[in-house]
């Protein structure tokens, strides 16, 4: 974080179809009905609670995952978006997440797990996801899991606020 400008860099990752772009656009108050699968990445800079958030949303297709590492540098916060209704791929989801957390360039980053699509019937709840994704094994990062619905916008603010406050606490003590 560049402290003078209170700038925070947030990287949003997750499997394809998790809802990353929808979260970004909904949070920014944009129309979400025309979103296409992300070919490459989106970047948005928003002002929130006195911070300047640089949000990077990188496509989650298998063929794009090897490019994720190009975005790791200087990341203060990592948002991992999970489609809680896509139970078939939760194992993939867990594998990708744990590979990511071993990455040295992300070692300082705070992790927020968004359990998206909570409004769909049959979606996993937080406890199930925590278990399936083995979140309690994570000791290397400050982490937090919260459910949300990108379509309705529920809990997006709460999640981002937690992320920002954790990053702010961490960075200011290091100064």
């Amino acid at each position, binding site marked *: 974080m560049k402290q003078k400008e209170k700038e925070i860099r947030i990287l949003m990752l997750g499997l394809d179809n998790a809802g990353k772009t929808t979260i970004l656009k909904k949070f920014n108050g944009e129309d979400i009905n025309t979103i296409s699968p992300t*070919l490459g990445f989106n970047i948005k800079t928003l002002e929130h609670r006195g911070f300047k958030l640089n949000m990077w949303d990188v496509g989650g297709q298998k063929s794009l995952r090897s490019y994720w590492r190009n975005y790791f540098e200087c990341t203060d916060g990592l948002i991992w978006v999970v489609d809680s209704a896509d139970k078939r791929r939760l194992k993939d989801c867990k594998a990708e997440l744990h590979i990511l957390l071993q990455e040295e360039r992300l070692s300082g980053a705070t992790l927020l797990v968004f359990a998206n699509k909570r409004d769909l019937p049959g979606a996993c709840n937080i406890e199930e996801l925590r278990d399936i994704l083995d979140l309690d094994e994570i000791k290397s990062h400050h982490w937090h899991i919260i459910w949300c619905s990108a379509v309705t916008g529920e809990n997006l603010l709460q999640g981002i606020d937690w992320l920002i406050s954790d990053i702010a606490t961490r960075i200011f003590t290091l100064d």
Partner: protein
Amino acid sequence: MQEKCDRKIEMLTKRDLERKLDLQKEQEIRNLTNADNEKIDYFESVFNEKRQFIADAIDEAHNIDIDKLGVHFNNISRDILILQKYLAASNIFLRGYDIKIYQQVLQNLTNQARDLEDKLLPKKKFGFKNKKSQKIDIGNGINGNRKKTIDEVDSCAPTKLDAFEDLNAVSDRSDTNLVLSNSQIFKKDILLSKLNNCKIKLFGSPSTLHMNYLKDCYIFCGPVSTSIFVESCENCTFVIACQQLRLHSSKNINIYLHVTSRAIMEDSSNIFIAPYNLEYENIQEDFKKSGLDGCSNNWTAIDDFNWLKLDKKSPNWNVLDEAKRIEKWSSFF
């Protein structure tokens, strides 16, 4: 003479005033430092007390049952986090050097706790396991025959049995014709999986549709309000409408498509696209309920993740010849 005297007095008064002001300023500064010192002293005692508490907890770990150790270490890391927050909140009045020292103390505690945890609680190895699992078919009695299946070694194996409890799925079937009405699928997340030579008609508006491991199938579906996700399908025909289409690792597929944003494909080939032409009773009503725009169809807007050249179209997909298109599906119903 009088004038000289006056000037002298004036000068003296002025000096006296300055002296008093200086004194006052000094006093203020002293008070401020005292307050700061008090704050610093207080912080130091609280911090040390907490630090000792955490250090004791770490020592205590040796005498704790292994099944309670996980919780114990979680408490320790939580306490360290709280202490770190306290330090962060106090950094306004602490000296830079002290902050560094305190930060070091916290780092040492974290390292100690982690090292000890690694020693006492060997980490669960993370890896892919080939689990045997029994699939439960639920969802309005869609699936009658319950089979025990051993999943192949692939990344799509279900992780948890209970994770499938309330999924609406049609799976592990051959040579089946099936019609589902809107009341069975409306706003639901529908999964079609491991089907051979089946004809499935979803006459309604689900929230999302997942299709994987389909072979020689015909799938008809009303407007899907969000996305359709296709993986590992072969020799199929899909007549589908959605906001987004994501097609992965599939080949020889004809898609009669209505897509309001865009479609993408990855690791797929021999894909032929035609415009959506499904008709059934109440389809217009289903479009309304789904929120999908029936008028905007970008069926030729397909991005191939394995073909990044902009000037040339991907060879992996093509528009289906009009002569080869099926115009009416009624013979299939």
